[in-house]
């Protein structure tokens, strides 16, 4: 790894989906060795941002640089090599349904290393123990609850001790006990393995409690960034509305629609068929 202070740099990024701009001229830095939380209302493209960093999507303009390498310009082979140094926890877990819990976690080790079987077994059990699921090693993904599946997926994502770990909504659907453990685990993994962590979430309390650096996105732009304290103190109306969870404010809660009264009174005349 190079010595620059930022592991990921996003410069002037524009990304369109069916002519709608998800990001327009977005610039963002993810400092090395820290936990960066990317927050924002639903539909601001948080997951899309992770996919752009992982090279699964290509930006329409601008560049995504990971450890000095411009991701959009990499060949397929170089991209797959870079991805071996990244770990990503998907929102759905995305476990391989035909493999057992043990084999799911062993998968990255089997394909990318030539370690002997007994060493792979030890490593898998260590990773599973760290998410509290060593006893579930023989289960199939279909036998796990959603939360357990996500923890197995986390064990799989850290199997190769990645330098950059990306979490897509890790706190959704976890019970309070698991949630507490998970928050602690993300912190511990980051510090103990010297990882850089990017966390995409809209769970404000959890994010602000573990993040070193927070970015709030809205309308394809970085609204504000800084330490959790700075975010909490922010005077921007949009940020306040988001942090306090208010329905009324600059961020519209409702999808754009015609006038409500008009819609009700003149139903059937405006081309709406029932």
């Amino acid at each position, binding site marked *: 790894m190079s010595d620059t202070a930022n592991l990921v740099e996003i410069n002037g990024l524009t990304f369109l989906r069916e002519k709608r701009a998800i990001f327009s001229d977005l610039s963002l830095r993810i400092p090395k060795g820290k936990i960066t939380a990317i927050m924002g209302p639903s539909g601001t493209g948080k997951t899309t941002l992770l996919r752009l960093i992982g090279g*699964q999507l290509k930006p329409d303009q601008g560049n995504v640089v990971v450890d000095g390498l411009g991701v959009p310009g990499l060949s397929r082979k170089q991209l*797959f090599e870079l*991805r071996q140094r990244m*770990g990503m926890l998907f929102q759905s877990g*995305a476990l391989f*349904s035909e493999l057992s819990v043990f084999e799911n976690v062993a998968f*990255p080790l089997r394909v990318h290393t030539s370690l002997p079987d007994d060493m792979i077994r030890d490593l898998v059990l260590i990773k599973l123990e760290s998410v509290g699921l060593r006893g579930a090693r023989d289960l199939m993904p279909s036998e796990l609850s959603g939360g357990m599946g996500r923890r197995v997926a986390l064990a799989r994502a850290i199997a190769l001790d990645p330098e950059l770990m990306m979490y897509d909504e890790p706190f959704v659907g976890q019970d309070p006990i698991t949630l507490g453990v998970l928050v602690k685990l993300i912190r511990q993994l980051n510090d103990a393995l010297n990882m850089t962590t990017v966390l995409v979430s809209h769970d404000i309390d959890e994010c602000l409690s573990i993040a070193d650096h927070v970015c709030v996105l809205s309308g394809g732009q970085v609204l504000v960034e800084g330490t959790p304290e700075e975010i909490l103190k922010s005077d921007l109306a949009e940020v306040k509305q988001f942090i306090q969870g208010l329905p009324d404010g600059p961020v519209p809660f409702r999808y754009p629609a015609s006038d409500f009264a008009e819609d009700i009174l003149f139903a059937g005349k405006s081309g709406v068929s029932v």
Partner: protein
Amino acid sequence: MLDWLQHIGHRVLSVVAGLGRSAQLLIAALFGVGYVLKNFRLLVKQVYVTGVLSIAIIGVSGLFIGMVLGLQGYSILVDFGAEEALGQMVALTLLRELSPVVAALLFAGRAGSALTAEIGLMKATEQLASMEMIGVDPIKRVIAPRLYAGIIALPLLCILFSVVGVWGGMLVGVEWLGVFEGSYWGNMQASVSFIHDVLNGVIKSVVFAFVVTWIAVFQGYDLEPTSEGISRATTKTVVHGSLAVLGLDFVLTALMFGDF
């Protein structure tokens, strides 16, 4: 009028773009041959899933089609006193046409649709995306073994279809309707040419296997990851696959047997 033109243009563009994407996928998957050979177990498993698990439907269909051929053939030939030629009629019909075509149609319905649904569900549940993020190319790991397995399995199934069909024809013709067994087999032996009939049938089957499996894996890989998208793609695999088989069969027959 302009709207209509625009609609046609849009459809044509999307078909052309789809063809381009399918060609890209095919080339990438074919180049995955090294990965498939290195991870031979993946291929063996897929040959089992697409081939071995299709044996029952292919065997039963082959038997019934052979029996029907025996019955129909006898009722036509007996009017001319030529029922001794039943063996060669059954064998040639099966080897040249019915085995490759019917086996491919059944394969599209049994194995092709399953391939599309499996790959599609892997896409919908982000398994393909997570594999990419682990640094493993899903085209090599998921698509290539399935493509090669289909190309291996269908020709073997086609041969099985012919064998069972010929036996079914004998069951009806010889055992039931009383055609002399020696002439059933003897005429068949005398008139069936290995290269012209057997090999050409197998070549047809290889071409069908290639096309049907290609359509199946592409539809799975390219589908819209929703429940509706999966159902639409599975239907497309069977419809496009079957039409491609029937269309190609005419072309191949014209090339192989068209020189009178």
